């Protein structure tokens, strides 16, 4: 590909779509795939037998998920004393893990809703599994506060329902806002994901070979036939959902940050928290998207649909949100100094220099230093360095929540009530096992559901537009009214202004 001089129209099989040429749109599907090719690439994953690698991964992750629920059982029969939570650090691991997981979910909704409204075509290749990531992350997130209430069997008291006790939940409490925000977010994300998936499940229904598979997919596809009338309403509903999810996703992590910001505690009581938390959530979420996308495109043979351009775009978003997070860190310190508030100043001196300086400096290293390698173009185009940066952010964002939750609680107004937090083995194992719950759900998704939004990917291919009207030719696409001579060919020819390669 390097041998082709600029402007050459010689099609290459290995298209490099990472180059930005303002005269043409970079193709988002490479490898000479046409509609049939895209369908087959995605359907092959679902219609083939699970590989040995899949089984090994799935069994390990399922055991971890089993462990996760066993710990909940242990909690129910024993009590919250099995955690390291104490007074004054009553929040500990359950809340740190909750914020960590719910934050990861946000990148999925950003990709599926916000980038959809911004007409970012590249989102179509990764939105499906980013949304799946959202839902499974929110499933994990929801578990932690639900069991953190202590008496798990009364968790339904969180919801407003008329009861014999004559009690209602306290609607002025941010913790109750959280119940509404997270339950709305989880259910709406699920509907968004499923709605978008219905046409693709119909594709799998029509591709499935086994009787069981046909029944399974027929049931989920609801009888979708791709009717133009159905597509018309479908597109409208999808647009409405995207428009509704955009404020929703921004509100959810804002509400999560209110759990902290509405409290009077120094280090928590800050107005910067909502935007800071949202940026952090997207930062951590994109790191998780990359962590999952890079191996998946390799294993499932999706390199021509999730191309290098997609990976680089994600890396750029991660870098950008990382800068916002760094800015928020520095503004916190500035405001602590500028406020002249004695306790606030103490907390922010205590973070880098006090009893939890290990966590703080690890957070700074992972979130502010490590990912900066992505500024270098060579690193941004190298999967190893992208993974390197993403792994830093995964670790760093967990420690960010640790630092926020624990340092402030352990050193509050009264030195007499200061205490140290020590996580127990249950805390640590339980957190690790939550990856098993997430991973086993994700493995099931990878095997049995359409990993790529097949129908949506087809709409961004040049062939999807009448008379191949795209790029600078869009204006006079209509004038090619005489019947195109592409009718008898299985795939349309690459014309002058497309870099879509033809044939292999």
């Amino acid at each position, binding site marked *: 590909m390097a041998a082709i001089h600029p402007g050459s129209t010689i099609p290459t099989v290995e298209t490099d779509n990472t180059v930005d040429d303002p005269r043409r749109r970079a193709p988002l599907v490479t490898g000479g795939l046409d509609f049939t090719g895209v369908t087959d690439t995605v359907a092959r994953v679902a219609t083939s037998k699970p590989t040995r690698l899949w089984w090994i991964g799935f069994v390990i992750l399922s055991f971890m998920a089993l462990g996760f629920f066993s710990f909940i059982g242990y909690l129910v029969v024993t009590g919250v004393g099995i955690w390291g939570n104490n007074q004054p650090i009553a929040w500990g691991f359950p809340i740190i893990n909750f914020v960590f997981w719910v934050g990861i979910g946000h990148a999925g909704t950003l990709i599926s809703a916000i980038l959809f409204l911004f007409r970012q075509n590249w989102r179509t290749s990764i939105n499906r599994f980013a949304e799946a990531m959202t839902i499974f992350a929110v499933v994990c997130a929801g578990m932690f506060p639900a069991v953190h209430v202590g008496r798990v069997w009364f968790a339904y008291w969180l919801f407003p329902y008329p009861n014999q006790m004559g009690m209602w939940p306290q609607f002025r409490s941010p913790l109750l806002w959280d119940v509404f*925000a997270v339950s709305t977010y989880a259910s709406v994300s699920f509907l968004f994901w499923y709605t978008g998936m219905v046409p693709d499940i119909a594709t799998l229904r029509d591709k499935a070979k086994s009787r069981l598979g046909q029944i399974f997919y027929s049931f989920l596809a609801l009888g979708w036939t*791709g009717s*133009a009338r159905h597509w018309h309403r*479908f*597109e409208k*509903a999808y647009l409405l959902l995207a428009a509704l999810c955009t404020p929703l996703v921004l509100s959810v992590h804002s509400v999560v940050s209110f759990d902290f910001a509405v409290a009077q505690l120094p280090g928590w009581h800050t107005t910067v928290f909502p935007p800071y938390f949202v940026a952090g959530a997207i930062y951590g979420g994109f790191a998780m998207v990359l962590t999952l996308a890079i191996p998946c495109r390799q294993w499932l043979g999706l390199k021509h649909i999730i191309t290098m351009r997609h990976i680089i775009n994600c890396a750029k978003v991660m870098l950008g949100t990382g800068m916002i997070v760094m800015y928020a860190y520095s503004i916190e310190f500035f405001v602590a100094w500028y406020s002249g508030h004695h306790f606030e100043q103490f907390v922010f001196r205590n973070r880098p220099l006090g009893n939890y300086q290990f966590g703080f400096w690890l957070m700074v290293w992972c979130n502010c230093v490590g990912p900066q390698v992505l500024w270098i173009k060579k690193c941004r185009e190298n999967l190893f360095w992208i993974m390197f940066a993403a792994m830093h952010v995964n670790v760093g964002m967990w420690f960010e929540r640790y630092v926020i939750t624990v340092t402030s609680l352990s050193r509050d107004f009264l030195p007499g009530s200061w205490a140290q937090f020590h996580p127990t083995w249950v805390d640590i194992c339980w957190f690790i096992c939550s990856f098993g719950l997430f991973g086993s759900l994700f493995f099931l998704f990878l095997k049995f559901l359409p990993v790529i939004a097949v129908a949506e990917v087809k709409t961004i291919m040049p062939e999807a537009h009448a008379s191949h009207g795209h790029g600078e030719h869009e204006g006079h696409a209509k004038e090619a009214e005489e019947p195109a001579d592409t009718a008898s060919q299985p795939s349309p020819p690459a014309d002058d202004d497309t870099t879509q390669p033809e044939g292999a």
Partner: protein
Amino acid sequence: MTVIDTQNPDVLAEVAVAADEPAAFGLIGEFDNVDDIIAAANAAREAGFKKMDVHSPFPVHGIDEAVGIKPTVLPWIVLLMGLTGMTTGLILTTYTMGVWQEPGFLPVNFEPYEYLISGKPYNSLAAFIPVIFELTIMFSAYTAVFAMFLLNKLPMLHNPLLKSERFRRATSDRFFLMIDARDRQFDAEQTKAFVKDMHGCRAVEIVDV
């Protein structure tokens, strides 16, 4: 009304043949690119067909005009339900957190509960906004999904079109023009010839009920 002579074996056989012969559900014509299907839909509409449809693996731009699809009422339903959600949130929070004159006949389950916390006012609208907002979104998003499926008459677990082996490619890489047998102008032979002559038509098939 015809009276069937149940004693006559010849008549009975005739009836059985008539019952066995399946009625046509519609006719599908297969195309393999976007230009041809738009042209085909335009031609069919201009020929006067009303009960027709296009089946495609993805939403085709410009097909709405070609088939003659009117804008959907869906956004208005969503708006209405969004406002309902907002009202629900407003009533739920202000009623249950407020101080009201007891009407007396309400069971204890529906009485409001007065939380006095840090001397904050009972009716504190600002603090209720998150709940009201989330309920608005929840009602509208659920409506967008369920109303869309219901307006589309889905789930439809039996569709004669799905019996056609050829039609399976409608979710992969082929575009189908479907003319319903209930259309006034539908005539198995003539319509078949009409679609067959269209530019780029690869195959025509009559689908039975």
